């Protein structure tokens, strides 16, 4: 019996604050759960605001003191306790802060804080507000654990934790059967990825002997290359499911059944990017397996185009954003596959800003038009809600990557540049994706905000909703200015920040790519305007079988339903009574039947008895003679 290992508190401030960053939302969550909804809504929102504020504050302080501290280029480890130690395998609950996790921690805590503040207003009238925030804060805690954990197994705790919270939040309005079903689908599909992730961990743990990420990165390269490739493929599978990449993307559109702040936080800004973060953390191993990288790039490439194509024909505003998230995540995967870690991380950050903004704006719209989500039933909202319109426009511009003024432009250009480096096909596809992106998002903008009124908007968005949107609007524009190509301005704050972890930024390309990349979004917006500019007749969604397929996610859902779900369920129902059990019943029935058959001999008819006696005599004589 080893003594309980003493909790190792680092001497520095950061080591003290780091666990608190996770503990703050966790405690809020526990308090909300234990009080079981008995707190009044105001107290709940105050508690959440305070908890998340502290969390963000601690994150910022620890980030600041880490960067100004002595080993700001390395990593800081805080070992909390030994989780498991069996034989020569050890897993620790330990946190580590390096520049990569620092960026991610800041995104999660700060964007999380903003979205939760927004959610305080959004969900204020919901009777189950305590449950909502219990899940939300638990999600933030899990996400921070995922980000900060230094052991892959502890990452997995956060990984599954965010999955569970995502499940709970998608199904938050469980009264609708469809929501609960969507929640289950999201969990099960991501769980497929989780199983692959787990297998990948087992492989790495067996090959390397530890799941500690620094150890993995140090010892992993010496493992046999087939092992490494297989392991990376498995981890990639896990990451893909989490990030809704083709072919495991089907859960994300359905996940929009949750409240809009959930979509903003989980299904746009943080959880879905966990896969990107994971691969970036393991880039040292990833770079050694070209096959896995190629697969990753291809997956990203395909996802960009498929998701953008689907987004083009959606009618539900949240589903448009969901497909756009998928498509943007495709960019990140493409970047990862091309070895452009900086680009992937940069796009992750800017995407978190503008996509959260878009979801918040969409949420404000939805709230004010009586939970109507069909864009063709909205229209002319520009005048009703000018501020929301501004925010949505900024977010759309950033998503489309309008040149120079938006964050999305710079991060996307970085990705396009690195894709060109690997293969012009990737570049062309991604560029076409960007073209589609600008079309579909501005289609949405023009239909929703221009034209005649088709719905009545009421009320105003309160301060608590407006402020986070304002802050994110600023970030969605200015966030890109921390990393600009040399051709525009020599600003490399972001890549300099991450270089110690991810290596130096690769050489840049000429301005020709940049110019093409700048023109494409503008062309897209123009086409969107010509197609969907306000006319006299109200716009209606185009209908054709091809479009229906496109709208239904290229038929992936139907396909999976036909191939996996339906046979599985049908066979399960056929075998509901368990054929092995039936087999034992058969034995029982046989025994019983033969018993009855023999009992029938006991007929009470003397002649039959005599016959049997005679037959027995004959048999005995046969033996004797």
């Amino acid at each position, binding site marked *: 019996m080893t003594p309980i290992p003493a909790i190792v508190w680092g001497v520095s401030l950061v080591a003290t604050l780091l666990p608190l960053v996770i503990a703050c939302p966790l405690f809020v969550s526990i308090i909300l759960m234990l009080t079981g909804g008995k707190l009044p809504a105001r107290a709940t929102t105050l508690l959440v605001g305070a908890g998340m504020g502290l969390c963000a504050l601690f994150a910022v302080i620890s980030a600041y003191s880490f960067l100004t501290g002595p080993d700001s280029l390395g990593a800081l480890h805080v070992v909390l306790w030994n989780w498991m130690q069996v034989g020569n395998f050890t897993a620790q609950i330990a946190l580590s802060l390096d520049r990569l996790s620092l960026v991610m921690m800041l995104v999660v805590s700060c964007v999380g804080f903003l979205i939760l503040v927004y959610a305080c207003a959004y969900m204020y009238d919901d009777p189950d507000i305590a449950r909502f925030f219990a899940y939300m804060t638990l999600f933030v805690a899990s996400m921070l654990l995922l980000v900060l954990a230094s052991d892959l197994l502890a990452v997995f705790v956060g990984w599954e934790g965010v999955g569970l919270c995502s499940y709970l939040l998608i199904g938050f309005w469980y009264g609708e059967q469809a929501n609960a079903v969507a929640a289950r689908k999201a969990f099960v599909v991501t769980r497929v990825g989780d199983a692959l992730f787990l297998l990948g961990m087992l492989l790495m743990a067996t090959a390397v002997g530890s799941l500690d990420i620094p150890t993995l990165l140090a010892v992993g390269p010496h493992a046999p290359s087939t092992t490494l490739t297989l392991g990376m493929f498995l981890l990639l599978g896990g990451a893909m499911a989490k990030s809704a990449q083709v072919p495991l993307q089907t859960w994300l559109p359905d996940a929009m059944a949750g409240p809009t702040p959930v979509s903003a936080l989980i299904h746009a800004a943080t959880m879905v990017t966990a896969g990107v973060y994971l691969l970036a953390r393991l880039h040292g191993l990833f770079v050694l397996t070209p096959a896995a990288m190629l697969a990753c790039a291809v997956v990203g490439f395909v996802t960009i185009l498929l998701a953008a194509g689907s987004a083009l024909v959606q009618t539900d505003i949240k589903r448009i954003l969901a497909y756009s998230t998928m498509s943007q995540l495709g960019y990140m995967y493409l970047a990862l596959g091309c070895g452009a870690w900086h680009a992937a991380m940069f796009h992750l950050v800017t995407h978190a800003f503008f996509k959260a903004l878009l979801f918040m704006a969409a949420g404000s719209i939805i709230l004010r038009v009586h939970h109507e989500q069909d864009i063709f039933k909205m229209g002319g909202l520009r005048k009703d809600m000018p501020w929301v319109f501004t925010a949505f426009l900024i977010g759309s511009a950033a998503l489309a990557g309008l040149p120079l003024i938006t964050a999305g432009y710079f991060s996307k250009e970085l990705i396009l540049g690195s894709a060109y480096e690997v293969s012009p096909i990737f570049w062309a596809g991604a560029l076409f994706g960007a073209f589609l992106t600008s079309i579909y998002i501005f289609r949405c903008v023009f239909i929703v905000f221009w034209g005649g009124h088709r719905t009545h908007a009421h009320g105003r968005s309160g301060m608590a909703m407006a402020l986070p949107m304002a802050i994110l609007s600023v970030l969605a524009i200015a966030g890109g200015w921390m990393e600009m190509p040399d051709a525009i301005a020599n600003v490399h704050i972001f890549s300099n920040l991450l270089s110690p972890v991810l290596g130096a930024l690769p050489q840049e390309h000429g301005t020709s790519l940049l110019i093409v990349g700048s023109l494409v979004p503008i062309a897209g917006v123009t086409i969107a305007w010509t197609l969907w500019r306000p006319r006299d007749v109200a716009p209606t969604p185009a209908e054709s079988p091809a479009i229906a397929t496109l709208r239904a996610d290229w038929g992936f859902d139907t396909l999976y339903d036909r191939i996996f779900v339906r046979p599985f369920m049908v066979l399960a129902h056929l075998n509901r009574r368990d054929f092995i059990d039936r087999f034992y019943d058969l034995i029982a029935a046989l025994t019983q039947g033969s018993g009855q058959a023999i009992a029938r001999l006991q007929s*009470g*008819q*003397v*002649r039959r008895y*005599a*016959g049997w006696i005679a037959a027995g005599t004959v048999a005995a004589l046969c033996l004797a003679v």
Partner: protein
Amino acid sequence: MNAADPNGALIVAVILFSLGALGVLVRRNLLFMLMSTEVMLNAACLAFIAAGNRWHLADGQVMFIMIVAFAAAESAVGLAIILRMHAAGRATLDADTGNRLGG
């Protein structure tokens, strides 16, 4: 008297026994079944006597006497049962209705 060939007697005994068995199996009338039983018993007697003749021992006849005693007891009881069934209102002496107890 000259000793006879017991082989022939044995074959006759066997045939009689089989006939008796056939009677028991075929007839549904209890009376005939009892009669067939008597035939079988007689066949056994014949076999004993033939064997007694062969070895020139009295045991065969002793056994015959035993069988006769047994046959007497058996037919007494059997006939009593038949009478009883008849008196109880059983319309026929059909043995196959004997499983309907309660008579």
